[in-house]
């Protein structure tokens, strides 16, 4: 039965069922439970199926959103999944971590009149359904005899590997850490992205015949030239992420209890410090934690601290709430979990005890001035407004820069002045046969853009490999 547009407009946006905030602030279980089938179909009914749907243009990988929502609304989950997976190979992940409110949902025609269609929830729903109900028919296409090395197993590397394997190329992923997944496993916490979802993507790749070699650091264990010359790979995709944390450069940063968000999250997520001492990697226990930053990384760090018992767990950000780059849902969830926010505040010094432990952070107020290059109003220091926030752990989540490990041993690889790899419109680097994508090309970006790069590059690499001889 088809609904009229006016009927569709009357349906309210479905609510995402979630763990009770008080309870979830004490565990690492996923916050969102996912929509039930009925609710998902009702939500899909809210899509007006616009001709020339704008939402598609908001999706960095151009998912046919009205197409998959239409199939879902008809109850044809298989078709919905086919449409979704056609453009996005990791929808179970992006459905959970994409900033939908600035992408597809921002352009939904309903925005303004009522709430946009919950595209993210539905993407997640269809992907989860497919993971649980579809036995992936593993196709083994005829082997091309070409071998490809992929450096890094984040979303860019995983996607590229999968796409190339589906075309019959033999793919090996080299990962520096002991577990594949990149930021998806060491950075983004379990309560936002359960690791079993990443694991199942990795499992799928293995079924496709992709080999994954962990603990191999390209640039150190093997160089790019080793891969091409001695190991006989026909092409290489570099997707080693951005990586290196930036520090503020304020006094007190080497006190005990100061972490980069990367270190804090790696200790807790990858190394399981929340299960210490069963898992032997520790993280410093602190009754009070302050995190500086306004992005997803900062939110993940402060919510992790909250779950490890910090009260208060405080986030300080130099701009105002509107300018926070973090996903809106995370900002809201964190607040419900009891995270305290201080906006328009910047740390100027970390204060320590006599024996070298963090005891507080000295902050200074900011006020918003003229817009800067990013179009956001520039925060300006307010002299004399300093105050102290007591804490025993202070976490910096203010950004990353390019990891030089690989590029420094491959001098022929052209990088820009920030150390990010330069590529042409096919994502090929200055070295023939060597391609790159994801954060190492874009600077810190998003999962969907990394995935999109992996996909686009795989297509370019496929052409390159076939035309090679």
């Amino acid at each position, binding site marked *: 039965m088809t609904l009229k547009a006016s009927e569709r407009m009357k349906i309210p946006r479905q609510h995402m069922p979630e763990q009770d905030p008080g309870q979830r602030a004490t565990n690492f279980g996923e916050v969102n439970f996912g929509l039930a089938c009925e609710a998902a179909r009702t939500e899909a009914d809210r899509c007006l199926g616009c001709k020339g749907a704008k939402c598609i243009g908001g999706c960095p990988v151009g998912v046919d959103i009205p197409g998959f929502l239409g199939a879902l609304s008809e109850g044809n989950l298989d078709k919905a999944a086919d449409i979704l997976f056609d453009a996005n190979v990791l929808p179970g992940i992006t459905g959970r971590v994409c900033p939908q409110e600035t992408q597809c949902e921002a352009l939904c025609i309903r925005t303004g009149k009522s709430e946009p269609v919950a595209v993210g929830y539905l993407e997640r729903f269809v992907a989860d359904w497919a993971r649980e109900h579809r036995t992936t028919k593993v196709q083994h296409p005829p082997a091309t005899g070409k071998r490809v090395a992929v450096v890094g197993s984040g979303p860019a590397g995983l996607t590229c590997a999968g796409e190339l394997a589906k075309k019959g190329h033999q793919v090996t992923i080299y990962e520096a850490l002991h577990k594949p997944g990149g930021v998806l496993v060491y950075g983004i916490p379990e309560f936002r992205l359960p690791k079993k979802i990443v694991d199942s993507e990795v499992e799928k790749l293995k079924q496709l015949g992709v080999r994954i070699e962990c*603990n191999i650091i390209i640039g*150190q264990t093997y160089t790019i030239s080793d891969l091409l010359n001695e190991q006989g790979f026909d092409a290489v995709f570099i997707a080693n992420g951005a990586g290196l944390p930036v520090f503020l450069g304020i006094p007190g940063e080497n006190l005990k209890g100061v972490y980069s968000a990367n270190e804090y999250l790696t200790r807790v997520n990858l190394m399981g410090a929340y299960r210490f001492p069963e898992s032997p990697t520790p993280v410093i226990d602190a009754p009070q934690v302050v995190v500086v930053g306004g992005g997803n990384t900062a939110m993940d760090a402060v919510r992790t601290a909250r779950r490890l018992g910090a009260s208060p767990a405080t986030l300080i950000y130099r701009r105002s709430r509107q300018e926070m780059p973090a996903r809106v849902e995370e900002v809201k969830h964190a607040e419900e979990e009891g995270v305290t926010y201080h906006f328009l505040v910047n740390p100027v010094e970390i204060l320590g005890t006599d024996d070298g432990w963090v005891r507080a952070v000295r902050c200074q107020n900011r006020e918003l001035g003229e817009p800067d290059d990013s179009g956001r109003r520039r925060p300006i220091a307010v002299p004399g407004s300093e105050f102290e926030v007591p804490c025993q752990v202070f976490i910096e989540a203010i950004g990353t820069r390019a990891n030089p*490990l690989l590029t420094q041993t491959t001098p022929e690889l052209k990088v820009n002045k920030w150390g990010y790899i330069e590529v042409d419109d096919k994502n090929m680097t200055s070295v023939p046969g060597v391609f790159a994508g994801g954060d190492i090309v874009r600077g810190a970006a998003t999962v969907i853009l990394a995935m999109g790069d992996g996909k686009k590059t795989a297509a370019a690499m496929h052409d390159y490999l076939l035309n090679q001889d």
Partner: protein
Amino acid sequence: MFLILDAQWLAPGIRRLIVQAPHVLRHHQPGHFVIVRVAPESERIPLTVADTDHDKQTITLIVQVVGATTEQLCNLETGQSVLDVAGPLGKPTEIKKFGHVVLVGGGVGTAVILPQAKALKNLGNRVSAVIGGRSKDYVILEQDLSQHCDAVYPCTDDGSYGYHGFVTGQLNELIADKAQPVDAVIAAGPVPMMKAVAEVTRPHGIHTIVSLNPIMVDGTGMCGGCRVMVGDKMLFACVDGPEFDAHQVDFDELRDRLTAYRTQEKRAWDHKPSGHVCKCKVAEVPS
């Protein structure tokens, strides 16, 4: 899994493990380290590659029991395996023709200077090694070093063997010997020792390198946990080091940062399911 072809106690609490790790050999140079995980739930710990054997495709690790993970590793026997060996990591040692180089190794730091001795000697340097231990039993690798060095000077705190006193005392004597002027010093060992070495060479303006051992997690530059202050720069020991100009390093801060997990390390030590079953003969519980 990486097979242990040989495991021997070199001294109380110090074990030598010869591990099959062909992938580490290809680009290994003196100064490199690896990150080891003993078993699925283990910590990632950095260990220097003390030696390599291209015929047997092995690396040598020399490990001192200081906590739960090093104990777990040292309890492994010949024929058992470690789960992961990632590397080689870090920047290699500056190996060039210096003239007369004095290598200073304190305790397990002696593992760091062994491959350096080899490489420096091959380039035609005069190489002296000053190696220290608490007492005779704790002086390690003297034989191995003497194969590559022009002179090896063992030192013991209690005078039970070799020079009676700290390695810095012996180093001072070598510097005072005008017949063999010292052109460079490379030191690896406990932080107070490296700091003392830096102070000994500073007034003489002798080029001095130290191999730092901050707490690491990934070893690939991703976490910043291994940061050290060198001059006024914050550097990451795993990618910018671990070797730095001794006269620029803030040793006090490094020493302090190494104590960040004292309480947790005690808990990890006490938590071991089997209690303390170390076979190393010294129950050196972290203090």
